């Protein structure tokens, strides 16, 4: 460029600036309240004259129309149309240091330009508008039907502002841009070629659709969501215990891949447990809210922790769905937004119903759900199918057997051992207070009122013969407490006294039978069965084993003398329940007798004989099952089937038990009262509040209950002004590096006013109308020209004018997230293991990182083999010390929605020297050496693999030089080549000498460090 030319360029640049300035002041006639005025007031005045009533000075409010126009005693802050009469203007332009606003010690001050803007606004009538993000979303009308609406909205402004618009980027750049954006992986050579070969119109759309359909899409989308959800594999804080929330992580991937509509995606995660007939998947989704840190530090107060967790849930919801900085209102009314402190606690009250407590630091703090990986779930389905198949076979086989069973039963009874129990069938049963009913198979059932104490009398006819003892069976019944044995608080009973009396004939007297000893299936501490006949009515037998009663119980009583029973004899049994424990009256029982010399409970294991002895019509369901099982056992094929089925059932049970426990949400049956907390301190309770939404946002729909489900549905109401805007902005940020609204985390009054408000609203409206279709939204953005523009910066002046590319006259060029840099290196070197889901993996980490951070309490055990090459999404995340090779990633401690992009030398050192990259360089080198024969072809191949394009001649010169350098160095010291090839676990069979391999490996490592490799262009 000649000097003349250069000066011209400079002059044109200058001219542009001048013109720009002129345009600005020409535009200034139309001062926009929202764009120009509110930010000034908010930044400089709201702190003392804003929503926070406690901080408000001079009773003046400048955040509401009423406030600015209020009569302050003959004058007002703003006199529409008359700046000279507006106190606001007088004060901000006052020469008196004490009078002038903002106060000199406030660290705030207004520029002359800002003062002028305020004056112009008042002169123009002081039009007042509500804060734009709280106003309804209005779909802008885009008339031109021929072009993409995004491009129309962007280009109209670009044209007006005289931006030079970049052309569409070349195809190689585009395919890499798209694949990295949507899958986090670079395109393969085949993918590039397919796209380049597709010359028909619609090629781009077809590529987009293919990409959206790949399962890597869900993995890429999940990363950002995990950062927002503060997902990690440990609790955080001291102890940092390990949790297993990864089935939730896998669910997120699946939800993105299935394109679960964003409203369902939201409702399931915030309140899936409260949906009618909630599925396991919907409950699993609520793990979202349980990803917060858990503090296990000794000396912490449980309630303090619990309150923190609920704060975290509330604030995460605020950031993710509404872009509101709710946390600012924990201790006082919000300084800028109209959010009152009471409204913060009303939000808090939705989440405060969780039974999860704050004590102990348990990484499986209830409520939990056992949920498997997809592989585990598949295994479960397979097992269930097999079991079902066996059941059918068994049924069929039994049908074939016909009356064989009747014959077998008769044979069994004939051969029965002599020591079996004989069931007794009562004739009469009555109690002092309850109603006793006689049921099938000799059972007696107590109902009616539930008295503190009671006494039963049951009369049994006896058969002729000998009796040596009796058995009492206490049988569980669903009507008893927790399906147990009595209607007491626990389902336990206390039998305090038991009497057996015999009457040999109707005319004989009752003769008491003396009991010599007794045994029981279980005895509760001192409440032994022997104390039922110890003449002490206060003692007795009970069976509580410290957990809900989960089995039947029995006691056998041996008589002192065996008795001979005459024909027509009757037995009268008296049971007393006289315990100090209320309602401990046995509710469901039966008696049997025996003639064996030493009656024990074991003599009829499983009760088969007793069941067989019972008339078929009197048999209980468990009797029937018992008989069937025994019958099956003597049939070889049937028993084989049974055995197999039992094995499968055991395996099913084991598989289920091995599922990881995921913390999920639930509400307590009895609502917890929520209080405002002074200064946010857990023990400084203020006024009680109930769940509700702020008055300045749409109301909770009338059909909704004020619970989490209502809240979730409210967020997704089409008239909610924030959810759709905040969400589309986050997706935009993912694709362009910066959101349309830069303050992704804050859409409140202090948010940035976007360059393209109409575009944001158009996207939000589009998203809503699509039924919250995420893939459709992404597709809409990506098929615009705006997305496809070349990111080349045509002149420094262009760059200076819009360094962050907020106007979108060019495509975005920015450094990939560090996790994506790793995935890319694994992919291009062929090391990547694409296995999806499952528990997190331990890939490379320098020695001693964990033990140094935890004083040796946590030791890192690196995985081996293919697990080392899983996608970064699956890398184990210890919260107090995250994976060291990821830089600028969210800490996963609290919700983060805006990515960081900085560059320190440490980042460079990571990609230069971490074993991950050194190994990837070597693996890439081995691939290249194998796939091509000539060095020149190999160089091109390596560049194509990494960058997806052909190298330029001057680049090739440098690559050749690098290769020469590397080969020289390794040739001089062949040992160093061996050492350089030793990094990482993967092994390659290579026919090439180590020096050659090492030389290429060094070159490839350099390729992985290229600025272009690290960037999305």
């Amino acid at each position, binding site marked *: 460029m000649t000097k003349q030319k250069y000066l011209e360029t400079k002059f044109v640049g200058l001219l542009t600036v001048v013109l720009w300035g002129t345009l600005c002041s020409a535009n200034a006639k139309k001062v926009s309240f929202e764009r120009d005025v509110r930010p000034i007031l908010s930044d400089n005045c709201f702190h003392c004259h804003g929503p926070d009533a406690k901080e408000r000075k001079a009773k003046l409010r400048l955040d509401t129309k009423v406030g600015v126009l209020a009569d302050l005693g003959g004058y007002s802050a703003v006199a529409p149309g008359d700046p000279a009469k507006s106190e606001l203007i007088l004060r901000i332009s006052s020469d008196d240091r004490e009078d002038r606003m903002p106060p000199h010690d406030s660290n705030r001050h207004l520029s002359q330009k800002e003062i002028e803007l305020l004056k112009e606004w008042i002169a123009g009538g002081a039009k007042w508008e509500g804060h734009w993000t709280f106003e309804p979303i209005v779909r802008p009308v885009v008339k031109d039907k021929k072009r993409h609406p995004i491009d129309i909205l962007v280009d109209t402004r670009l044209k007006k502002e005289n931006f030079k618009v970049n052309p569409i980027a070349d195809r190689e750049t585009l395919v890499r841009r798209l694949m990295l954006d949507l899958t986090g992986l670079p395109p393969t050579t085949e993918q590039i070629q397919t796209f380049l070969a597709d010359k028909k119109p619609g090629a781009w759309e077809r590529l987009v659709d293919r990409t959206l359909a790949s399962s890597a899409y869900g993995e890429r989308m999940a990363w950002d969501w995990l950062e927002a959800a503060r997902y990690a594999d440990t609790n955080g804080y001291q102890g940092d215990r390990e949790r297993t929330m990864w089935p939730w992580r896998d669910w997120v991937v699946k939800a993105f891949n299935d394109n679960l509509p964003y409203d369902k995606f939201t409702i399931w995660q915030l309140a899936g447990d409260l949906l009618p007939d909630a599925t396991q998947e919907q409950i699993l989704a609520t793990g979202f809210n349980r990803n917060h840190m858990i503090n296990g530090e000794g000396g912490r107060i449980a309630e303090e922790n619990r309150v923190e967790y609920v704060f975290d849930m509330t604030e995460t919801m605020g950031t993710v769905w509404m872009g509101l900085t709710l946390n600012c209102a924990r201790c006082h009314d919000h300084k800028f937004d109209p959010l009152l402190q009471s409204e913060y606690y009303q939000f808090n009250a939705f989440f405060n119903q969780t039974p999860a407590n704050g004590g102990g630091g348990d990484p499986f703090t209830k409520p939990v759900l056992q949920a498997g990986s997809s592989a585990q779930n598949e295994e479960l389905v397979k097992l269930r199918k097999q079991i079902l198949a066996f059941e059918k076979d068994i049924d069929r086989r039994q049908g074939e057997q016909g009356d064989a069973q009747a014959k077998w039963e008769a044979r069994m009874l004939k051969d029965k051992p002599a020591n079996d129990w004989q069931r007794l069938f009562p004739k009469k049963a009555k109690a002092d207070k309850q109603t006793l009913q006689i049921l099938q198979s000799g059972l007696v059932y107590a109902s009616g009122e539930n008295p503190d104490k009671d006494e039963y009398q049951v009369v049994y006819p006896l058969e002729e013969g000998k009796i040596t003892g009796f058995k009492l069976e206490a049988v569980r019944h669903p009507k008893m407490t927790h399906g147990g044995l009595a209607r007491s608080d626990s389902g336990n009973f206390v039998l305090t006294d038991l009497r057996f009396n015999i009457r040999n004939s109707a005319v004989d007297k009752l003769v008491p039978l003396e009991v010599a000893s007794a045994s029981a299936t279980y005895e509760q501490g001192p409440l032994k069965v022997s104390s039922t006949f110890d003449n002490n009515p206060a003692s007795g037998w009970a069976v509580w084993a410290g957990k809900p009663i989960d089995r039947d119980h029995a006691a056998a009583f041996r008589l002192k003398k065996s008795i001979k029973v005459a024909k027509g004899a009757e037995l009268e049994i008296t049971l007393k329940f006289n315990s100090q424990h209320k309602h401990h009256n046995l509710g469901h029982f039966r008696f049997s007798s025996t003639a064996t010399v030493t009656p024990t409970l074991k003599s009829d294991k499983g009760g088969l004989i007793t069941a067989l002895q019972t008339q078929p019509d009197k048999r209980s369901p468990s009797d029937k099952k018992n008989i069937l099982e025994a019958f099956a056992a003597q049939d070889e094929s049937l028993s084989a089937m049974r055995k197999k089925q039992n094995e499968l059932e055991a395996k099913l049970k084991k598989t289920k038990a091995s599922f990881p426990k995921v913390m999920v949400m639930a509400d307590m049956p009895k609502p917890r009262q929520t209080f405002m907390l002074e200064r946010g301190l857990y023990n400084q309770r203020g006024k009680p509040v109930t769940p509700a939404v702020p008055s300045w946002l749409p109301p909770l729909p009338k059909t909704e209950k004020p619970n989490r489900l209502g809240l979730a549905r409210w967020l997704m109401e089409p008239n909610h002004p924030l959810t759709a805007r905040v969400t589309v902005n986050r997706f935009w940020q993912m694709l362009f590096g910066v959101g349309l609204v830069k303050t992704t985390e804050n859409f409140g009054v202090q948010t940035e006013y976007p360059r393209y408000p109409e575009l944001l609203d158009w996207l939000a409206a589009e998203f809503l109308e699509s039924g919250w279709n995420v893939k459709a939204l992404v597709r809409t953005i990506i098929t615009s020209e705006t997305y496809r523009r070349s990111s080349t910066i045509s002149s420094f002046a262009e760059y200076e004018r819009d360094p962050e590319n907020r106007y979108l006259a060019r495509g975005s060029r920015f450094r990939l997230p560090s996790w994506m840099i790793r995935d890319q290196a694994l992919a291009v070197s062929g090391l990547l293991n694409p296995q999806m889901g499952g528990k997190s993996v331990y890939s490379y980490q320098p020695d001693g990182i964990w033990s140094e951070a935890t004083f040796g309490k946590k030791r890192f055990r690196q995985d081996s083999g293919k697990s080392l090459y899983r996608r970064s999404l699956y890398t184990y995340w210890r919260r107090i010390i995250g994976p*060291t*090779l990821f830089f600028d990633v969210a800490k996963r401690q609290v919700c983060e929605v805006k990515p960081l992009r900085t*560059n*320190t030398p440490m980042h460079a050192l990571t990609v230069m020297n971490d074993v991950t990259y*050194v190994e990837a360089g070597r693996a890439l080198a081995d691939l290249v050496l194998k796939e091509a024969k000539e060095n020149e072809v190999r160089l091109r191949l390596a560049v194509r693999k990494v960058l997806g394009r052909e190298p330029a001649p001057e680049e090739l010169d440098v690559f050749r030089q690098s290769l020469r350098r590397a080969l020289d160095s390794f040739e001089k010291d062949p040992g160093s080549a061996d050492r350089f090839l030793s990094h990482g676990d993967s092994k390659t069979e290579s026919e090439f000498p180590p020096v050659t391999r090492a030389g290429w490996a060094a070159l490839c490592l350099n390729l992985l460090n290229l*600025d272009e490799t690290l960037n999305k262009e």
Partner: protein
Amino acid sequence: MTVDQAWRILDPFAPKPVQDRQLAINRRQFFSRGATGIGTAALAGLLGRDSLLATPFKQGGALGASHLPPKAKRVIYLFQNGAPTHVDLFDYKPRLHKLHGTPVPEEYLGGKRFSTMTGNPKGKLMLEPVEPFQQHGHSGAWVSEFMPHTAKVVDDLCFIKSMHTEAVNHAPAISFLLSGSEMPGRPTMGAWLNYGLGSSSEELPGFVVMTSISKGTSCGQIFYDFYWGSGFLPSRFQGSRFRGSRDPVLYLKNPDGMKPELRRGLLDDLARLNQLKYEQVGDPEIQTRIAQYEMAYKMQTSVPELTDFSDEPEHVLKMYGPQVKEPGTFAYNCLMARRLAERGVNFIQCMHAGWDQHNSLTTELYNQCRDTDQPSAALVQDLKMRGMLDDTLVIWGGEFGRTPFIQGDIRNRKRWGRDHHPYAFTVWMAGGGIKPGMTYGASDDLGFNAVENKVHVHDFQATVMHLLGIDHEKLTYRFQGRHFRLTDVHGHVVKEICT
């Protein structure tokens, strides 16, 4: 709409018009001035700008010029993690001997909150200092026999005995002291200063953290990375943790087999390729990338030199005590701190854990003092000998104090302990702008409550910033629509201790 444009809508991949090519050539000439032309100007512009864009270590701070004339240029914070017992080390209370074994006088309690380990302190027995105290130096400062080396340098120190804080547990209290908030996530003092004042080292980060713990300590507290986090400030301001091993910086070493000369050459090639890219696409970030890799290389050479103590004279090494050559010890870290300070690092945070004597006042406390007393005193002396103490602020202290009453059984001397105590504790400061040989503020006659010239954590923070020439009310950062600062909305500079 031209035909070309119309066609492009139908097929965006139509060949580009010729004029683009011409433009590209011009552009290339425009940018090819490389390291001396526009590129540098662009880079310089970027360095000053606070944006998402890249920035290497050495840079001006966000403040530009300081608010006040700075008295200190850098800080070395010897953070005693776990809370040293003020009543056994520096805050001498003879009345504790008299009340030893008697219940806490009720008038000292009044609704105070203690950790759940103590719960209700009513009826707890008072505990006398474990070791005797003596006055030292011209200033006559009281120091117990636990700290013989510190006792020798008291005339260089300023003791603040009226510190008090809000939190009763370690992590929140440390977070409060270092970031002004009990909840993690705010920028820490080092990050604020790094942001406000910039960095004066070309080869090293402006904010370096080192950690250590005494061997055999039973209850060390974890070093959470939010103790040196940058919160919402760009992450380049966060502390760089130098590890307690021979490789203090992760990934610093070239992979085994790659010679330094080869790396140098390859980095030259990388820079050339990046420069080509820059000329082609014009993204000034590429210049920053080139600088970033160059600085990484510089670090690779400067850090090993930093950790090579062979140039230290024997008497200096001896001063720091027997552990000075052992990476990961407090002594090693103290000497490293001086070496970092010499090389332009502005905020050096040495954290030593294990001061949590719940039941080990008569056992582990001795080890704790043995490992820290001598190196701390040596650092002050060493800086003084080199004339660096004048502009280096050294701070020694923990997150709170310990109860003047006992935790444990008074008859079992071996298990004597004290619980967490936020109502009074002692820190000392020395050097850069601090009056030497003085004691400021006092606790009551039992060391229970700060009573005279109370210094709240926010006051302490304001004072540190003041010494560095920063008005703590003016160094702010806008986040979530609010201007945040280290001292929240509080803090008063303790002018009485400043020169």
